[in-house]
């Protein structure tokens, strides 16, 4: 009984998540086309207005509409997150596939490097990289990519190792296919679904990482405020008792993260139906 309730609840959860994610992404992509935001515009007569009908999220310390700023911030965060997640996935897939396909000492060396990178806390390594190369967008993206390729490399390597023992690979090898051909034509296509799932799951992590860097004042420049930078710049008004400039950017980080987690859980279930995912709401 409880099981079926759980199941239907899960299907609704997937639908709601898909709708939320679509709405959020559409807003981030389309709203800036329709409503321009002048980051320099200041309306001190309307500063720090609490949420109301004309400003659903209220206004910030210089009178800008927070809903619009959140959408713009989300756009920056999503853009950085997606690019960084893609970069990390490409590095991770390349390293993992090479390690798995080559085997032997090359594999051991690569896995030692992966271990080495995992023994430095991610945010610390990210902070270090950005501190040395800032300011700009690229150091932030590099910092995320550099700290997030490890799990993809591990997943892809394990997948390649398991594919290598399949008969069709043996057949290709005994048919005279070169190492390169086996890797590109037979191993990589088998790995892509897993790598794709890893990439999607990484986007929230990348957004999280970027917003933490921005909050610490190490992220993107202020005229291109991401959600984390918005929380940072709202600190002053929070200490004066105005909660809305802090609350809403944070919610904008949480909602897409949760939606992606639920959807990825459903996708994983489809990839591997036997191990039912726990990642649902």
């Amino acid at each position, binding site marked *: 009984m409880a099981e079926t309730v759980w199941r239907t609840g899960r299907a609704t959860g997937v639908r709601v998540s898909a709708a939320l994610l679509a709405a959020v992404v559409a807003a981030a992509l389309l709203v800036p086309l329709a409503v321009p935001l002048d980051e320099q515009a200041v309306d001190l007569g309307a500063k720090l207005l609490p949420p109301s009908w004309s400003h659903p999220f209220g206004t910030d310390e210089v009178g800008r509409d927070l809903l619009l700023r959140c959408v713009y911030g989300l756009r920056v965060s999503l853009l950085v997150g997606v690019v960084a997640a893609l970069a990390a996935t490409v590095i991770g897939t390349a390293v993992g596939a090479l390690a798995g396909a080559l085997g032997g000492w090359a594999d051991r060396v690569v896995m030692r490097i992966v271990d080495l990178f995992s*023994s430095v*806390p991610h945010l610390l390594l990210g902070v270090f990289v950005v*501190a040395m190369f800032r300011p700009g967008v690229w150091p932030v993206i590099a910092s995320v990519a550099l700290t997030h390729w490890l799990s993809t490399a591990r997943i892809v390597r394990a997948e390649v190792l398991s594919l290598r023992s399949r008969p069709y690979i043996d057949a290709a090898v005994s048919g005279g296919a070169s190492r390169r051909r086996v890797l590109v034509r037979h191993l990589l296509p088998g790995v892509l679904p897993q790598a794709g799932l890893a990439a999607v799951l990484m986007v929230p992590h990348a957004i999280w990482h970027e917003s*933490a860097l921005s909050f610490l004042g190490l992220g993107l420049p202020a005229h291109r405020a991401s959600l984390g930078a918005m929380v940072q710049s709202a600190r002053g008004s929070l200490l004066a008792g105005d909660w809305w400039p802090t609350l809403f950017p944070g919610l904008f980080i*949480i909602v897409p993260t949760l939606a992606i987690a639920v959807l990825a859980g459903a996708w994983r279930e489809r990839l591997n139906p036997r191990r039912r995912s726990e990642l649902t709401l």
Partner: protein
Amino acid sequence: MTARTTVPWGPMARMAGRRLLAAVPVLAVVTFGVFAVAAASPFDPAKAYAGSSGLGAGQEVLAQLRENLGADRPFTARWWDWLTAALHGDLGRSASLRQPVAQAIAERIGWSALLCGVAFALAVILGTALGVLAGRRRGGRFDRAVTSLSYVLEAAPPFWLGLLAIWFFALRLGALPAGGLTDTGSDTITAGQVASHLVLPAAVLAVTQLPWFVLYVRQGVGDALTEDPVRGARARGLRERTVLLGHALRSGLLPVLTLVGSRVPELITGALLVETVFSWPGIASATVEAATSVDFPLLAALTVLATAAVLAGNLLSDLLYGLADPRVGFDG
């Protein structure tokens, strides 16, 4: 009646020794990497040393500084100098804190340890309790509430939670101090003041670590409840409480406890953000300050320290794992 278990101190000590030996090259490589990244970056140690006065400093002054600091030599040579000096206990001088790096770390590490220790203990205790209650009836109303909340908390940025906690508990209710270690204007550090200033940061750090524990314990207990030993215990007519706490929790908690050490990186990440939000005078907030002012000697030392902490956590994890499951042993 339980058999008396003896702790295999010998193999455990040998494993710790091997790991210590293996940690030496890892730490050396990490420091090398830190220097290589710094060398590849546009960061100029001479300008950093000159600080804001360096803006007015002429080319000759900067060149002289560069020579004094040895900044023109290849980074491998600078790395070697730093390493040999560090082994003699000289970690250099922190420009942002205006004191030797070793002294800065010594002054601050205790406060970080206090914060992380309290938060972690809180997360383990609360996480276990909530996980058991949720895992007892998976799919039930309580389980769904706890699981959903865990995912939300896991997605929430720690700095955001910290700020909202400050707003609610410090500003709205006025019940707790908003940050720092002592009340402003007081010179002495008393235990009572530290305790009241510790509550909010420790609670927020604990909340950021909590979801992981809750979900793992829930999974472990829930799985254990469907296994034969529990069925056997139920068949013998044992009370539900004994079954849950004596059988399911015992087997469900083991894998979690053994993974505790591997949570060190997440704990450090959380501490970086929470210490900054609450102006807690620990080494994590010093790391952020070092990064924003590109205080290289401090940043390098703290990166190494964090890596050492992660490696120690991994060792602890493996030792506990070997103790909990004798089949695994201490060969790693």
